[in-house]
């Protein structure tokens, strides 16, 4: 077997097992999404806070794999962290929208009782 063949085989076998460059862009994206989730109050919304926690764990996992040189695995972990954070944002936004809707409805109800 020629050396080049071993390189291809090695690359295929070793997918996600280090050797590659650190997934900086993916990590940045994950962190950015995490910060956004925190900013929209995902911590305070019950369902959102669960996914925020998962996102944090995935990001943490990503960081550990970067330290271990497992860059591909780290990249995937960051992708999952970003997905969890995005979901936390969506759920937090939804909770907020529902809260607002509830408030507006109460207000409308008050106004109706007062004026209609």
């Amino acid at each position, binding site marked *: *077997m020629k050396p080049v063949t071993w390189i291809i085989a090695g690359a*295929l076998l070793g997918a996600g097992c280090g050797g590659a460059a650190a997934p900086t862009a993916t990590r940045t994206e994950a962190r950015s999404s995490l910060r956004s989730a925190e900013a929209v109050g995902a911590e305070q919304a019950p369902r959102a806070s669960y996914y925020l926690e998962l996102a944090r764990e995935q990001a943490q996992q990503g960081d550990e794999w970067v330290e271990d040189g497992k860059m591909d695995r780290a990249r995937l972990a960051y992708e999952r962290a970003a*997905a969890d954070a995005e*979901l936390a944002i969506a759920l937090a936004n*939804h909770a907020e929208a529902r809260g607002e809707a509830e408030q507006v409805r109460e207000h409308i109800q008050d106004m109706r009782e007062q004026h209609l």
Partner: protein
Amino acid sequence: MTKRTTQKILLVAGVLALGLPGCGSTPVSAELVDARDVVNQAVRGPANELEPDEVRRADRTLARAERAPDGSAEERHFAYLADRQARIAIAHAETARTQQALEADQERYQEDLEETAVDQSQQLEARQDELARTREALEDVRAELSERGEQLDERTEELQAREQELSARVDELMQAREARAAAEQRAAQAMNELREMAEIREEQEQWVITLNGEVLFETGESELRGTATRRLRAVAEALNQSEDTSIVIEGHTDSRGSDADNRELSRARAAAVRDFLVAHEVDSSRVEIIGRGEAEPVADNDTPEGRANNRRVEIHVERAS
């Protein structure tokens, strides 16, 4: 491609096949099962209509997981991502629906408010109209009251004036009554004084002074004797005590001579008495004379005494009421 090369590729494929988990009988990951479920929800639910791009993205990611070898890390990874993407699509769709429902609520409320505003505006207008009518009516009532007040004032003034007038009249009448009473008293006194010189008869409404014809006139004459003046002056004085009463002077004769002559004579004598009285300040307008002749005798004309009594002058004086 040489036979060796083909062998090498097969070798690599074999190595790869050994290295990939889930190959053959390996079951799909729990993540994929969950992801299928969630993506299916997104596809069949309102998210498919409201967030079609996100649902398609989740579906594509799920397809990548499906393409990955069963139970592999790649499958689990893409299943995980597909699950999250589908959940995001569902959450976004729910948020959109919440907002739509809210907007609908607000719109309904706005419509209700506008309707209510129109109703209230109409009610307000009606009330304002009513108020204006009430004000006008009130103004009319005020004007009427004011007019009536003025009328009442005028009537009150009129009544006060009348009352004063009446009071004055009452005073006048009282004074007049007192004056009359005084006059009556004076007349009575004068008549009493006159009794010494003439016969006085007091009747219901009049005094009757009877003067003997012999004392006043010569027989058959109508000129007063000189001796008559004292008596007649006294009579005049008595009559002047009650100035506003009417006086009737009646001349009477006895039955000797013709009726016509006697009437003539009796009238002439009454006139002579009147003239004397008028000359002595008795108001001529008070005095009326009548010649009765022999028609009303008071005694028997067959005797000289009777005839003497029948020859007479009677002065009828109205009594003050």
